[in-house]
């Protein structure tokens, strides 16, 4: 079997021998996921104009307004009021001190997609812009100012898009979160906006950008919305107008975080957790007793697939500290996955501080915590699934006394 035709003949015969029917479970699982999956909108920005497009004054504003409706993205230069929508703003509409400009410059189609590994949303942006992921998480009690490291940033030369999200407090409603965010203002008076199907509010609508802005003298737009257990904040600053902000927001896809309406208690690993009831639970059948590979058959509880959750625990060997065990586990994990440098952050699970492994966020995010002499490992697989893991971890109860072995 050494010539091409013989190889092709044999290969065709061999290919014909595989399965020809999709397993029902795979199809049903896909259909279940589709029930909670929103379709993308067909947003197209098919054309651009020259940056030197010589429009001025009222005529320019009128023309650009029409173009913006067609999907053109326009940056307002200093001294411009082109394209700024005169909608009421809780922080004050475009003030007289806001710069006014005489020209607009197209920044082209939003052809690239940014996926936030930390916050799980996606947004499209123009080619040539740079991206910088947040270096730590925006949590209740912190302020995600520019430069705080809490925001993902997408930068053009004079415009910046920032995005962040935080988990709502236990039992906190979307309205309660919004009121807390407003810090004394009345968010019900803010203009509404829709982000990926969720109603949000514009809390800053073209106000002069303050210190820390990418372009002093420019403007700022800010929107907040709540998607399930997460609140999202999106901001643009610099020489930017409302049409541009709206165009960016129109491309935002928020993470799908199904309701955690199921409850599972692991009799093998000793914990309980809430999960989307549509996800299939396959409990562990035997305890994890040695080594660092949690993928061995039967030692992890698994819930769902792609994205999916896995949970397990192991009793630390006598005389082994958690730090020593974790270092060895981390080394094993780093060697077997995406080969990125180890990167962990603190995470709190059921009141216990552990480690959140984020070195491979495109593939999985994993939390490890010590309780009652056991190391617990909770993993969610799939790209940008950190919000899913964090919302599930918030429901975990550690019960090391009930674990087997």
């Amino acid at each position, binding site marked *: 079997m050494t010539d091409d035709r013989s190889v092709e003949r044999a290969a065709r015969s*061999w290919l014909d021998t595989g399965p*020809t029917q999709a397993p029902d479970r795979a199809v049903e699982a896909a259909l279940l996921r589709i029930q909670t999956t929103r379709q993308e909108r067909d947003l197209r920005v098919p054309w651009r104009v020259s940056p030197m497009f010589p429009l001025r004054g009222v005529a320019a504003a009128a023309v650009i307004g029409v173009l913006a409706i067609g999907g053109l993205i326009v940056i307002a230069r200093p001294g411009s009021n082109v394209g700024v929508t005169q909608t009421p703003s809780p922080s004050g509409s475009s003030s007289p001190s806001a710069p006014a400009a005489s020209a607009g410059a197209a920044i082209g189609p939003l052809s690239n997609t940014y996926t936030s590994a930390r916050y799980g949303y996606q947004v499209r942006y123009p080619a040539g812009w740079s991206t910088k992921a947040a270096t730590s998480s925006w949590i209740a009690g912190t302020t995600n100012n520019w430069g705080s490291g809490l925001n993902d940033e997408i930068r053009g030369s004079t415009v910046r898009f920032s995005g962040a999200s935080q988990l709502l407090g236990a039992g906190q409603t979307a309205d309660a979160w919004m009121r807390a965010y407003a810090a004394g203002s009345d968010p019900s008076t803010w203009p509404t906006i829709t982000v990926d199907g969720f109603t949000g509010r514009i809390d800053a609508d073209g106000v002069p950008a303050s210190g820390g802005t990418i372009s002093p003298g420019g403007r700022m737009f800010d929107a907040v919305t709540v998607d399930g257990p997460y609140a999202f904040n999106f901001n643009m600053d610099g020489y930017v107008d409302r049409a541009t902000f709206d165009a960016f927001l129109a491309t935002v896809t928020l993470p799908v975080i199904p309701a955690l309406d199921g409850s599972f208690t692991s009799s093998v690993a000793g914990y309980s957790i809430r999960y989307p009831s549509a996800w299939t639970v396959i409990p562990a059948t035997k305890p994890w007793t040695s080594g660092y*590979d949690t993928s061995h058959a039967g030692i992890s509880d698994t819930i769902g697939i*792609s994205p999916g959750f896995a949970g397990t625990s192991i009793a630390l060997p006598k005389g082994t500290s958690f730090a020593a065990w974790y270092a060895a586990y981390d080394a094993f994990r780093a060697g077997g996955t995406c080969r990125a440098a180890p990167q962990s952050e603190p995470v709190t699970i059921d009141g216990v501080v552990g480690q959140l492994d984020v070195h491979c966020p495109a593939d999985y995010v994993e939390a490890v915590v010590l309780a009652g002499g056991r190391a617990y490992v909770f993993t969610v697989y799939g790209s940008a699934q950190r919000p899913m893991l964090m919302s599930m971890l918030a429901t975990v109860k550690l019960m090391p006394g009930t674990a087997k072995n």
Partner: protein
Amino acid sequence: MDRDLVEQARRGDREAFTVLVHQVSDVLYAVAYRILRDSGRAEDALQNALVIAWRRLPHLRDADRFEAWVHRILVHACYDESQRARQWTAKIRVLPADGPTTPDGSSSLADRDELERAFRRLPIDQRAVFVLHHYLGLPLVEIAEILDIPAGTARSRLHYATRGLRDALTAEPELASQGGRLA
């Protein structure tokens, strides 16, 4: 493929999309299995492809091209699964050695084992072209269109896949005697 169903699904009709799913799942799974050579990963690729297809369906310009379009999504889902398998093998799961599920009267067990090993060594993009051409019987021009690659690239991938299989099969007895297993 029913154009009306595709149009309904494009507009967000989940029931219409469910019908489409049942119409295309078998062939998509069969293709995914043959590219990935792993039933679990083929299931994952199928699921992901169907969900992605649902999400992106509003972007489909020509409803008549649904089948080709969803094949492209599936092949890319296979690429993703393949990469995940390569990166996660140590942590997540060991790649099971799924074998053929039905007897094959035209080639010996030894030949099929050799083909299995040789095929697994091919780059995933070559596997995809090989499967689309030799299993689905698609002409290279159509494969190029489905994968959004130049026809010449499709042709060269098929050529290198065939040559890779031939070379591997020629060298297989030596490898087999060394006891190596490549996923």
